[in-house]
């Protein structure tokens, strides 16, 4: 029941001022809460990050990327090969299934914020910015947590830049998107989708769950995560044979990809993302190396010379140069290698890397 309110003459100016105050207070409170809330509990991501944070000074090399890193880079083999080549390393695999740009950039920044003292090399899986909806994670916190202003602006920019070679927001494009019509409906949908996720993330919708998790685990000793694999270094090998039908599809796709092999630059927004990321890595005293895993796609991805990204790109998506990685028996699908081939791939990465270091060709 409401008490009779005191009536006063309405002043539009004061009304607008009060709305402004309420909006400002809301935004400041959201930002304050956002900064002070514990890191959200996201499957795979949080445990692996916590593990790295606890052992941050043990590692000098980190691989970060998607399942193509998680299941294909064995830190133990990498370290052994590097040691044999005279460049000893201590490596951690921070590959997480489905983690593609710009999510990997967010996770990498969290990793660097732990200030690992001895970090020297950061291998980043090179890929285009992903703007599409991911059905597997849609509606989960995984799709939400990385939508900070930096990552969201990159994604929105990528959507707006789609089909344009030049960088920057195209006003005409924004105008077209604002107008109704079927032509841009997908882009419009994606803009709303990512915008809504950003708003949800910024306003901390449902983050009480992080507080409860944090309180309930305050005095609990965390067991070594199974997500980190048998060696506790983040590498989880996979073993599976492709079916006959899958082999046929794979071979057809590979054949097509080989005949259409070539090279191209990543999109302008992806370059912006990697420039920022490379800058962060260098600021932390480490060197970024960009890695293209043995994908079916036979395109040499790279940066424009004028992009200003100082970072070596190591590419392994060449079936002619690395036929051993493209044998049917070596793969579980078009994107992933089985455990045996993954170890071979790790050795190749380590050998190429030590070669580059010997020749002083690391940028």
């Amino acid at each position, binding site marked *: 029941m409401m008490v009779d309110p005191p009536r006063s003459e309405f002043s539009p100016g004061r009304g607008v001022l009060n709305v402004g105050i309420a909006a400002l207070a*809301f935004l400041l*409170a959201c930002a304050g809460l956002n900064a002070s809330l514990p890191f959200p509990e996201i499957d795979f991501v949080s445990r692996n990050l916590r593990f790295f944070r606890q052992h941050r000074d043990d590692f000098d090399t980190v691989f970060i990327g998607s399942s193509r890193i998680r299941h294909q880079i064995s830190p133990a083999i990498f370290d052994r090969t590097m040691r044999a080549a005279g460049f000893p390393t201590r490596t951690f695999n921070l590959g997480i299934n489905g983690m593609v740009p710009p999510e990997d950039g967010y996770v990498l920044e969290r990793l660097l914020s732990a200030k690992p003292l001895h970090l020297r090399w950061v291998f980043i899986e090179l890929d285009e910015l992903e703007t599409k909806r991911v059905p597997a994670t849609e509606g989960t916190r995984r799709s939400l947590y990385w939508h900070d202003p930096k990552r969201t602006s990159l994604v929105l920019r990528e959507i707006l830049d789609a089909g344009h070679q030049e960088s920057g927001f195209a006003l005409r494009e924004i105008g077209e998107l604002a107008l109704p019509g079927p032509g841009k409906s997908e882009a419009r949908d994606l803009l709303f989708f990512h915008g809504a996720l950003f708003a949800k993330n910024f306003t901390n*919708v449902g983050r009480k769950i992080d507080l409860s998790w944090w309180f309930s685990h305050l005095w609990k000793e965390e067991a070594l995560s199974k997500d980190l694999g048998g060696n506790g270094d983040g590498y989880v090998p996979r073993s599976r044979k492709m079916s006959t039908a899958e082999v046929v599809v794979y071979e057809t796709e590979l054949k097509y990809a080989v005949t259409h092999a070539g090279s191209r630059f990543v999109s302008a927004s992806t370059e912006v993302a990697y420039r920022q990321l490379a800058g962060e890595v260098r600021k932390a005293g480490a060197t970024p190396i960009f890695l293209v895993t043995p994908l079916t796609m036979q395109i040499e991805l790279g940066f424009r010379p004028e992009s200003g990204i100082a970072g070596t790109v190591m590419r392994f998506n060449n079936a002619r140069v690395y036929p051993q990685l493209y044998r049917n028996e070596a793969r579980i699908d078009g994107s992933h290698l089985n455990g045996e081939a993954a170890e071979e791939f790790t050795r190749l990465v380590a050998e190429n890397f030590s070669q580059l270091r010997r020749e002083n060709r690391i940028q």
Partner: protein
Amino acid sequence: MLFVEFRFFWFFLAVFCVYWSLRDNRSRKIWLLLCSYVFYAAWNWKFLFLLMGSSALDYFVGLMLARTKNPGARRGWLILSLCVNLGTIAFFKYYNFFVSSAAVFLAWLGLPASLHTLNIIIPVGVSFYTFHSMSYTIDVYRGKMRAVTSILDVACFIGFFPQMVAGPIVRAAQFLPQLQSLRKFSNADVRGALVLFLVGFVKKACIADGVAPTVDKYFDSPANYTAASAWLAILFYGIQIYCDFSGYTDMAIACARLLGYELTLNFNFPYLARNVAEFWHRWHISLSSWLRDYLYIPVGGNRGNRWFVARNIMITMLLGGLWHGGAWTFVIWGGLHGLALVVHREWQRRVEGRAPSRPLPGVPGSPDATEDVPPRRGPFGWLAWSLTFYWVCFTWIFFRAADLERAGVIAKSFVFWQSPGTHDLGFRMIWIVVLLGVIHQLNGRRVFSSWWRRGSPEVFAAGYGCAFAVVLLFIPPHYAPFIYFQF
């Protein structure tokens, strides 16, 4: 579009700014009607025609009732309105129920019939806006109000977006005069409305949606859970339905108040009731008073001997239960409440030796609405409260259960503490019930009713912004639709 969604915020902001910037009442009403139809079309634009048709018909019937003096013709016009409005509800909500029930009954008689049900989508809020609509024609027929000559007013009354889809069920006599006078912003209780909206938001988004997953889990497969889990789930459902529905009502009243209109009170701390008659004076007041005026009194009301009154109560409550949806569970729910009202009436007459109180309330805001049942104090009061609350929770089983079979399993667990299941929902969550109960009790004593009126508007604005930011922390990532939208 839900009141708790971001897009409603932008929608309402646009409605609010344009509404108050318009100078004359007619333009404002046109704008309100337009926005109300956009709001409704956000669910399903096809059903907009049904809403428009209902408004047009009742406007026309109202005019004809005003013009016709012949009682027979007047009755004819009223019957037309009732048939169309009730026919609409009957088709969309009850067609399948009646067909399947008839098939079961025929099979029981040994006359199996293959009757086909239809794949019918129930228009959102159809039960609410047809009740708005019918209250207009019935009141004009009874001479309680004059027919309105502007179709805009009637359409605005029936389609007013804050109360269109889930009430409160506002009477034409109460709302139409408000539409006919120019509202002044300086008369709007903005601070009160904003606080009420926030309270409604917390009830719906934080509390109701917060306990909903536990409730759903239990009611989906009650046989798997222990009796303690049944208690927890039923108590949680009591919380969920109250917070969901009264939260919606709070937000509806707040939105209307921000536009200068007063809607009727719908909830008055129902879980503090110490008998079932008092419960119905506090729960969904706009429906119970509607049922009283347009059903209970016309079928005889309190006139006649006690068996006749008991019959009237049972008819009213059974139909009130059926109003919620075409399912026997709702009918049983209404029947149980009717039974409790009859028993309470007898108790008052025989044991307490006093005149029985009215089973249903009058129109909120009207002089006869305040004739509440005097609450009991002391230990007997506590006992009365416990029994009432237990009974209300027991009846929720039938309101929520998907079918009678499951309702039977749950009722057995709740009443006899017997369940074949071994799964546990975590009875420690009972502290949530206790905490919310204490808050409900304190709020019932008006502890939180006015302190937020102190302080300058600037301080209030800053506090409001911060409070909303904190509240968002406690809402689930996905909103559940309001429970009463299905009715």
